[in-house]
């Protein structure tokens, strides 16, 4: 049966991660010798390493074997495909994949399915034909930041630092932010510039933008690495008091920067927790459960106001906080 192409941001067949246990009961115990493989986008970004930590801890909790592999560098689409195929050869029961693009892992998906493996697409790029997706709503990242500006400022000039052109997450985040803030009041997006996920390029772009718009009130960057570059540019321009800077992902450096009063906020998508949920979904599928096509994972806008509530090492406590919302 052919599935309709998936758009994870709008798919109606979805469930929030918090409802899993309520709807499908407690975690089933996996069969002995169950092995799960993870194919990550890259390990050079903390986000993807944290996701792996989540996978591993959930795997340990259920006593299943786990191996985590990543493409040598972000953007190496064929390299990631080869790695996925090579893992399939090793005969895992389930595969958690975070593809570089919407389609670069398509053949791996197909051959994994033909080997009878369970495949879960975890976050970021979305394979349209995938049966199971776990991840957050990318658009929401931008929407949340825009909402903060609408709630906390009268209006003014804002700018976006985009990720790599053509990448799904970058496009959705930028879109969510721009559409929401332009509809929501007296704001003007004066610049929307690609910085290719690079801290250095983001720094240069931000200082150029500040040169031209010294009255700018805020930046939204598509990820935290770029946001931290922007923060330095804002400080160098002596505009730290006037310009709010937001990132996305919630890496630990972003937390540190918020605490230091530099970064205004980030949209944390809780990678460790996301990893745990994804592993849980995979194991439930292996146990034969029929889950909704999209399992949405948590997100929260972190600012100096709420940082202590979210900055917890222990994911059980974090779960509790998020569930309490």
């Amino acid at each position, binding site marked *: 049966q052919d599935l309709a192409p998936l758009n994870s941001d709008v798919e109606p067949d979805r469930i929030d991660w918090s409802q899993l246990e309520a709807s499908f009961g407690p975690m089933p115990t996996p069969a002995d010798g169950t092995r799960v493989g993870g194919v990550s986008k890259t390990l050079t970004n903390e986000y993807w390493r944290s996701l792996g930590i989540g996978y591993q801890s959930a795997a340990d909790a259920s006593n299943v074997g786990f191996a985590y592999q990543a493409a040598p560098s972000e953007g190496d689409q064929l390299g990631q495909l080869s790695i996925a*195929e090579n893992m399939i050869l090793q005969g895992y029961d389930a595969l958690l994949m975070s593809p570089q693009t919407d*389609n670069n892992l398509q053949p791996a998906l197909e051959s994994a399915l033909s080997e009878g493996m369970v495949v879960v697409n975890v976050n970021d790029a979305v394979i349209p034909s995938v049966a199971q997706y776990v991840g957050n709503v990318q658009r929401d990242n931008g929407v949340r930041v825009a909402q903060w500006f609408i709630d906390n400022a009268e209006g003014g000039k804002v700018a976006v630092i985009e990720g790599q052109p053509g990448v799904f997450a970058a496009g959705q985040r930028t879109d969510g932010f721009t559409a929401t803030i332009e509809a929501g009041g007296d704001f003007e997006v004066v610049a929307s510039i690609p910085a290719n996920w690079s801290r250095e390029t983001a720094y240069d772009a931000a200082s150029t933008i500040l040169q031209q718009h010294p009255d700018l009130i805020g930046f939204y960057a598509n990820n935290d690495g770029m946001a931290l570059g922007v923060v330095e540019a804002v400080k160098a321009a002596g505009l730290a008091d006037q310009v709010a800077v937001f990132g996305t992902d919630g890496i630990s450096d972003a937390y540190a920067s918020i605490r230091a009063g530099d970064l205004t906020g980030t949209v944390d998508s809780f990678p460790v927790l996301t990893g745990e949920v994804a592993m849980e979904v995979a194991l439930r599928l292996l146990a034969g459960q029929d889950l909704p096509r999209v399992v949405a994972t948590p997100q929260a806008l972190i600012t100096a106001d709420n940082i202590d509530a979210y900055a917890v090492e222990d994911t059980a406590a974090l779960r509790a906080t998020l569930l309490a919302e």
Partner: protein
Amino acid sequence: MTDQTDIARARGLKSLLPAAFNLRDAGTLLGLILIFVVFGVLSPVFLTAPNLLNILQQSSINACIALGMTFVIISGGIDLSVGPTAALSAVAGASLMVAGVPLPLALLAALGAGMLCGFFNGALIAYAGLQPFIVTLGGLSLYRALSLIFTGGNPIFGIPPEFRSFINGDLAGIPVPVVIVAVVAAILWIVLNRSPLGEYILAVGGNPEAARIAGVPVARTKITVYMLSGGLAALASMILMGRLGAADPTMGNLWELDAIAAAAIGGASLMGGKGSVIGTLLGAVILGSLRNGLTLMNVQAFYQLLATGIIIIVAMLIDRATRGKG
């Protein structure tokens, strides 16, 4: 006479090897065998037939690009724009397929698009006399931008299933992409070693001024070489499109580095005038086996990077040592 016997002896030695092969390629082959032995010992899966086919399949796209790159490099140039050229050809081909244009026509159009990119590169290099590096660096941005703008940044889905199943099928147990690349390589070997064009390419790369004075159509040769590279990038993009079932405007990221690496491992000199079809194929397989073996051993990404760097250098050292002061 000493001369005569010496020459006779050298001839005799040569005739022991198949004609297609040269001593330089033997060094590369040795590197490959070493990698096979090491991984074969370390991982039980590595030397199984399905995995070897897997390696060939995974190497086929890089091999295809690297073959074109080899010709460009032999002619004394370089083509950094192969990845975006592939992307542009893929979106051109895919959008025609989706629009219902007959498959062969759409494929021809895709190849045409790739060759057009190559022609643009080649014409700027041959007629305007610009440096290949800078022209194709410009092309790298240009063709990528065109395919992004054309598609609005979204991949094109809906590749005809018959095309996909053709590419994903096999011939006598050999994956179709491997067969395609093998055929292409055979043709290119003949072109390089047996055709006037091959002689022209080697001459242009070896000494462009002398080639020109000897009546070699230098500009035409250069343009042909870049068109070949563009066409092979398009072919690679078709193979990939068949496998992925989509044409992505971001396709082909970093392909140029892998392709140059395969060609260089295979003995092509970036100074021009030197390179081998067989060497490049071996180079692509070396890179493919490396990645395959490291993944099979479940080496962590950072250490994979480390191993890749070390093995590339060690392979070159071995190669160098075996073939002496070539």
